[in-house]
């Protein structure tokens, strides 16, 4: 490449990468052996790069047992169990509550069936005398208000000495 060919440098690189040669560069290459040679070198270098770049990663991977080591590290921090515990926390609450309810229910049933006379005692406790119904009468309303001085809860007419009703 001649010193006055430096203006073609960028276009040579672009052409080597894209593979598309502009008419102007084509004309220059046909008349400049140095640039034509540089073009050939760049194309060869580009092919080498295409081979090398993927090669930097080819075969690169974690060593055998990597996933096991990651899981062991997670378990070592205790976070796995913590997360598992978080996941199952509703069961941790619901199971004891359900168990307690079942125990209470069973004990209650057991008491009902084993204590002699319990049912009779319960029936007796809820028994009300038939006369209780009589108390639910206008008398209850009267008892709710306090009579004034000289008055009575019940105003019963009585005969005075002259035989008049008072």
């Amino acid at each position: 490449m001649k010193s006055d060919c430096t203006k073609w440098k960028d276009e040579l690189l672009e052409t080597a990468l894209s593979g598309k040669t502009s008419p102007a560069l084509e004309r220059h290459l046909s008349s400049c052996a140095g640039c034509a040679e540089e073009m050939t070198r760049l194309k060869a270098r580009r092919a080498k790069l295409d081979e090398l770049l993927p090669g930097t990663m080819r075969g690169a991977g974690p060593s055998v047992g990597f996933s096991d080591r990651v899981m062991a590290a997670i378990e070592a921090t205790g976070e796995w169990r913590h997360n598992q515990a978080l996941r199952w926390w509703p069961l941790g609450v619901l199971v004891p509550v359900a168990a307690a309810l079942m125990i209470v229910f069973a004990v209650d049933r057991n008491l009902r069936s084993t204590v002699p006379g319990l049912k009779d005692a319960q029936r007796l406790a809820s028994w009300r005398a038939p006369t209780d119904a009589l108390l639910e009468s206008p008398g209850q309303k009267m008892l709710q208000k306090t009579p004034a001085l000289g008055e009575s809860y019940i105003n019963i007419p009585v005969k005075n000495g002259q035989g008049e009703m008072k």
Partner: protein
Amino acid sequence: MEEALASSEIDSSEAGFVERLKENQRRVFQIAYGVLGNRADAEEVAQEAFLQAYRKSRSLRDPEKFRAWVNRISFRLALNRQRGLRRRLDRDAAWQATGSETTDGVRNAEQRLLLSQLYTCMERMPEKLRRVLQLATVEDMDSVEVGAVLGIPEGTVRSRLHAARKFLLDAMK
């Protein structure tokens, strides 16, 4: 297969996480390796990336984002480690990886020399071009994913990749 897993609902069970770990481990390792150039460091970073992914996986609502998410974690951790180490890249492991695929000793030596030259040129490259090139060489990563890791549009990835290749073409004489 990866897409099939991503489209299914994220599984927080041990088996589900192990499956995602196995599907993504190679790429996550390569992302770290591209930045650090050292297998031991890259493996530590990949492990830490999966630990972080595990810790935060409960907060990940969209399962399709797991792949992009763990990629970003690995890249960020690798950059942090690289800044912390402040040492020249040790690419011996990469040479071994490439060399192991060739049986011809002369070709092997030539490859090593070229790789050495390539890494030297990459170190001289502007950082934003180098990052794109490193991620673009990771197997199974397209320009959309590279853009997602770096937080730049796909078009920018393509133009930077072109600029990076042009830089190498000019620098590797």
